[in-house]
């Protein structure tokens, strides 16, 4: 054994390890590597520029996914638009001027979507008014012209085109749509300028793509953008922007290789489909969502999910629905297989019955053949004839039934063939489905998302059953109205006064301010500038009251805790739920570096309304990759819900987080758990601004036993 590093070094040096390479492997890998190098170099030096093709085996899946993303982005995007151009701060204004004023722009965009489907590098061109051409070499070209309200996608290899005609786009949205990524960046800059540059931070000089550049970072609640410009010419060289999209994923887009105000021929934005292409056309209603869209969405949801309604009205609902949809499709396939099996069994049963009926006749015929006596032969023949008469009706019936079953089997098989053909066609099927199924869902959610705070909207449909005329599921106050619109689970709507709204006076729904006993503050004043990206600004005052149902308490108190680091450097794991929230020495547990997690077992399912975390509040630290999840099982396999994620680069592997970094204070970090039902809570972190270790003083989970 060994005592120290030196001992261990000696042991290793004495080991006899066969690590001699095989020359044949060395030579063959060399050839393979250089061939990959040359191939990549060729792809990069094509006349159209650099393209890194994302690996997506099926072009149908890829194009359908891309189109579905565009479809959904269209609906979301056209309802968001920026204000007038306003420039403040001379250097920043100089840097963004070309972005804001260029009539045409060409650039490359590398899109990195968390779920990969829409990832890749694209050659892009933008031209006023509201036109964009996006091309992935050899795969597809998409052209959007918002003035004409039209989108064309050309699948180059398959020679198929999809034309989408957007109806009812209001003029104000036509040139500022999220469907056009460059204009979205423009919108973000305008929004940052409107907030009087409070959200703009100068990053200083840095070498970017081989040149000295100055950078600006824009931090707004829903997006984050970094602009790098050549230090001498002040022309943008690189823009990195990340924004949340549907499906609860974050998309990061990196723009490079800019050229501003170059001549771009109108033919590049032509919406004319080449003659040899098979065209699919569809219409998309791009008007602002209305109440009827919400009702249609609720109806479609209930019909597709066995009479249920969404868990909540946020972007996660889209994901929830698409999962239910996928499940339904697989059920449909299962039903089809079951039906074929049933028909086959029916056919076999009928055949067996027919054989049984015909058996005596068969036997008589055999006897007839064996017999040599004429008299005997006559007798058998007579008997056979009687037997035939007796069973003929039954036989006819059975044969008729068999014929019918055979017909059904044939139809079923044709149906299957048709489905296979449709799957081959892919584009049409996927898009029609996306339009018919997903778009109404997105429209309904957008309606709710766009309601202003004054609308006082409430949703209580999670547990309601479709068709229940007495169960109110949603209400809101339309703009300028004195009364509320109240929607019931049978999707009927009534106008009611505030007094007639559903009363939330039962014990479980009456809300009270959460009473959290705070530990003493260990530092005063504003925390120092930690230069952490995506950092939440300090509130500068106590946290506002957080409302929870009456009876809610800390259900994590003295509950068992486990950790990925079995041997903490300082303290014991049990300290995390011991109720001691002070930052003094002896009150915290220190876990090793890198990504570590702790798991609290609440010992029974609870409805959790808030989770409050104190990592270490002796100093104003920021912890990295803070991810909070709940689940039904200790291995986090069943019903896993992520409640918080501020991992900005997906280093923890749970996707890019949308939550912000925050500075530790004696208030702890309160995470709204929205009443999620779970037994286990897991918290991840990966070092902090003070050191690489991970610390916990206390974790509280406020909830009630699940009903």
């Amino acid at each position, binding site marked *: 054994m060994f005592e*120290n590093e030196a001992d261990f070094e000696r042991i290793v040096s004495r080991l006899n*390890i066969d690590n001699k390479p*095989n020359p044949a*492997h060395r030579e063959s890998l060399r050839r*393979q590597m250089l061939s990959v190098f040359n191939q990549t170099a060729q792809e990069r030096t094509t006349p159209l520029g650099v393209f890194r093709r994302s690996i997506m085996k099926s072009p149908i899946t890829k194009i359908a996914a891309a189109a579905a993303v565009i479809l959904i982005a269209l609906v979301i995007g056209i309802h968001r638009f920026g204000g007038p151009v306003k420039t403040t701060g001379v250097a920043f204004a100089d840097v963004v001027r070309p972005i804001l004023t260029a009539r045409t722009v060409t650039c490359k965009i590398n899109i990195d979507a968390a779920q990969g489907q829409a990832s890749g590098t694209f050659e892009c061109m933008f031209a006023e008014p509201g036109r964009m051409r996006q091309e992935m070499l050899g795969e597809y070209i998409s052209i959007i012209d918002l003035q004409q309200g039209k989108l064309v996608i050309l699948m180059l290899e398959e020679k198929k085109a999809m034309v989408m005609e957007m109806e009812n786009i209001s003029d104000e949205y036509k040139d500022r749509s999220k469907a056009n990524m460059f204009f979205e960046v423009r919108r973000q800059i305008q929004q940052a300028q409107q907030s009087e540059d409070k959200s703009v931070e100068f990053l200083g000089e840095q070498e970017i793509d081989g040149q000295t550049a100055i950078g600006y970072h824009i931090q707004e609640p829903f997006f984050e953008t970094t602009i790098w410009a050549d230090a001498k010419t002040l022309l943008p060289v690189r823009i990195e922007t990340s924004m949340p999209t549907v499906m609860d994923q974050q998309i990061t887009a990196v723009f490079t290789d800019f050229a501003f105000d170059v001549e771009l021929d109108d033919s590049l934005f032509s919406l004319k489909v080449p003659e040899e292409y098979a065209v699919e056309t569809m219409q998309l209603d791009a008007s602002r969502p209305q109440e009827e869209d919400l009702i249609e969405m609720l109806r479609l949801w209930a019909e597709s999910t066995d009479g249920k309604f969404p868990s909540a009205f946020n972007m996660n609902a889209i994901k929830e629905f698409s999962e239910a949809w996928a499940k339904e499709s697989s059920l449909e396939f299962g039903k089809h297989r079951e039906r074929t099996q049933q028909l086959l069994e029916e056919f076999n049963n009928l055949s067996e019955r027919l054989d049984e009926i015909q058996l005596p006749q068969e036997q008589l015929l055999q006897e007839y053949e064996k017999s040599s006596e004429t008299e005997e032969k006559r007798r058998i023949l007579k008997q056979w004839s009687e037997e035939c008469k007796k069973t003929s009706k039954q036989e006819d019936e059975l044969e008729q039934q068999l014929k019918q079953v055979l017909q059904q089997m044939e139809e079923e098989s044709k149906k299957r063939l048709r489905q296979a053909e449709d799957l081959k066609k892919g584009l049409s099927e996927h898009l029609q489905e996306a339009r018919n199924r997903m778009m109404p869902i997105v429209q309904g959610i957008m309606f709710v998302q766009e309601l202003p705070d004054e609308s006082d909207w409430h949703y209580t449909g999670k547990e309601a059953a479709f068709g229940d005329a007495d169960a109110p599921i949603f209400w809101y106050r339309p703009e300028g109205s004195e009364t509320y619109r109240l929607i019931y689970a049978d999707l009927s709507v009534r106008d009611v006064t505030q007094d007639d709204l559903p009363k939330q006076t039962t014990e479980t729904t009456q809300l009270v301010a959460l009473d959290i006993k705070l530990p003493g503050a260990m530092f005063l004043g504003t925390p120092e500038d930690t230069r952490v990206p995506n950092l939440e600004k300090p509130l500068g005052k106590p946290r506002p009251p957080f409302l929870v149902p009456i009876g809610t308490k800390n259900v994590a108190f003295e509950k068992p805790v486990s950790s990925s680091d079995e041997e903490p450097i300082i303290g014991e794991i049990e300290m995390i739920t011991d109720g001691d929230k002070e930052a003094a020495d002896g009150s915290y547990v220190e876990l090793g570096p890198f990504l570590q997690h702790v798991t609290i077992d609440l010992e029974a399912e609870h409805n959790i309304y808030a989770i409050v975390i104190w990592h270490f509040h002796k100093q104003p630290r920021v912890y990295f990759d803070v991810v909070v999840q709940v689940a039904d099982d200790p291995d986090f396999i069943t019903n896993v819900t992520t409640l918080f994620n501020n991992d900005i680069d997906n280093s923890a592997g749970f996707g890019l987080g949308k939550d912000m970094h925050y500075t530790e204070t004696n208030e702890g970090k309160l995470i709204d758990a929205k009443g999620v039902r779970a037994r286990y809570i897991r918290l991840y972190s990966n070092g902090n601004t003070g050191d690489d270790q991970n610390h916990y003083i206390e974790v509280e989970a406020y909830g009630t036993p699940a009903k």
Partner: protein
Amino acid sequence: MAMVGAMAKTVRQAEDDDLVLRARTEADALGRLYELYYERIFRFCVHRLFDKEIAEDVTSTVFLEVARRIHDFKGRTEQDFRNWLLRIAVNQANAYIRKTSRRKRLLAKAARAMAEAGKSTDDSSELDWPMLYTAILKLRAEHQTIITLKFFENLEFEQIARILNAREATVRVTLHRILTKLRNHLQTVLDGEK
């Protein structure tokens, strides 16, 4: 002589740096880098993955990844390249053993090798490679990496910290804890032997 030696070193360093810059666009330069680093990466993979065939597979993955990404490699010096290459190797090796089934397969191979070694040697008190590897494989992937880089690749703490994107002090402290854990694991392996 010392000055000539220092100059030769500087010239070689400059040549290697130039090689790295040229390797972004020139196949010959990349081929030269490959010759310089193949053995080192292969050795690292053997130390992380025990089995030579598996090490060959992962070495292939590492260099193919290099071929695909070298065009966009932002480093300028040979040291930048070395760190980048080792980081790719670390990630690929960790990715390989992250799957439990693969880890089990490696453990089984080490156990077989341990049994065979036991037959052929009289001195059972001496730690052998399969035994040590079995104990190392029980550590977390990051910790295994630190052990390999420090004791098998003989890297300085500073370089390990760069490769793992951690602080030097963290690597030092972590190593101390890892060795304690490794000692315990080794004891378990030795006890199992008896």
